């Protein structure tokens, strides 16, 4: 399997293809961010979270307004929670999980189904490494959960909520996955890392 690190402006495909982290010019597709080109797939390694309907995100309440709440979602613009649809009240600084209901071309982002998050730790990683943290069929994140006995919720926006169990180790593992997201054999590496740490600590 050949992997190639690509920087912005490099030719990815000599035909037009709409994908994240790329642009089309004169019928050809070029990278717009750093990424990995592997077996005809381009995986961005950098980039801010771009909200998409259906995404589950971890947000922070920034501002209370007459009609609802403004929520920071780690995107270039805040999300809005309409208070008419809510049964719970939030305070500024509250952490929550919510679903992206819609986002339009002028950056209006509507959130629904919020749930308050209590007593836990939140870490932020680049949103582009979220798929690696989850792993194929949840394999990576389930492994972290099983070994650390922590509850880990991965927001699509690159915010990860962790509580209970060995939360510190879980956080460290998640950061490691994000940092090394572009390397191969990552699942094995993380497994070894978690087991080594657990053995060390149980001694």
């Amino acid at each position, binding site marked *: 399997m050949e992997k190639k690190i690509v920087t912005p402006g490099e030719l990815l495909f000599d035909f037009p293809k709409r994908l994240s982290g790329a*642009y089309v010019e004169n019928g050809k597709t070029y990278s717009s961010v750093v990424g990995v080109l592997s077996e005809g797939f381009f995986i961005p390694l950098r980039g801010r979270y771009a909200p998409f309907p259906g995404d589950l995100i971890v947000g922070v309440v920034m501002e209370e307004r007459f009609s609802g709440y403004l929520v920071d979602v780690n995107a*270039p*613009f805040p999300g809005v929670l309409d208070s008419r649809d809510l049964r719970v009240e939030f305070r500024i600084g509250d952490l929550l999980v919510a679903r992206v209901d819609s986002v339009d071309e002028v*950056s209006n982002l509507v959130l629904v189904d919020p749930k308050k998050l209590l007593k836990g730790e939140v870490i932020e990683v680049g949103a582009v490494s979220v798929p690696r943290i989850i792993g194929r069929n949840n394999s990576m994140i389930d492994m972290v959960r099983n070994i650390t006995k922590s509850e880990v919720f991965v927001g699509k926006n690159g915010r990860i909520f962790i509580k209970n169990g060995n939360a510190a180790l879980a956080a460290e593992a998640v950061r490691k996955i994000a940092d090394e997201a572009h390397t191969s054999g990552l699942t094995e590496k993380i497994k070894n890392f978690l087991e080594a740490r657990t053995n060390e600590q149980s001694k």
Partner: protein
Amino acid sequence: MNKANKPELIIDGRRTDGRNLEDLRSVKIESGVLDNADGSAMVEWGNNKIIAGVYGPREVFPKHFSDPYKAVVNFRYVMCSFSSLEEHSRGGPNRRSIEISKMGKHVFENLILTEQFPNTAIDIDVEVLQSDGGTRVAAFTAASVALVDAGIPVKGFAGGVSVGKVDGRLAVDLNKIEDNYGESDVPVMFNSSNSEILLLQMDGLLTREEYERSIDLCYEASKKVNALQVDSIKKKME
């Protein structure tokens, strides 16, 4: 500068610092040098030392400065008060740096895929810590790397150099002494992906042939700068 005391700047085809006419100075680029900024880069270009930091895309304040079609690009180029060999300067923007900031804004408005982020701002801040001629191309080179480090979608890198006329001959990448006595200055930057000209300024007196040759020399040098920019990003991915 008093032209009467002008030293000889090219002797046997060699310049004061030993370079040939078409040589760049030594250029070092490191990406991701700052913690808080979304992206950053440090460029050491001859004796120039320049640091660039990028934030965004983020919300625009005040709100009426926002554009419903695209991200607003703010570019700030400043020389630190201690950056030059001469006297302590006032620091902060002056007429020269305001014009350069405007040029930087134009370069990156072209390069950034701004239409992906309506109603937001991208803030680029470049500080010249130490200056030795050719700071504007070095500053834009650093800013370009910082943007890529931040993961802001761009069409390519902006790379380039300034070509000047010294002792009647065209020379690439003038240092401070050469710049002081230079008979012309042509800073040019190119988009690495399509060779389009992003920055072009000129003063001096050049014939059409010299003018065209200056742009060609800048283009050759821009390829070398671009390779260093790519390396600085790839190094962080190892």
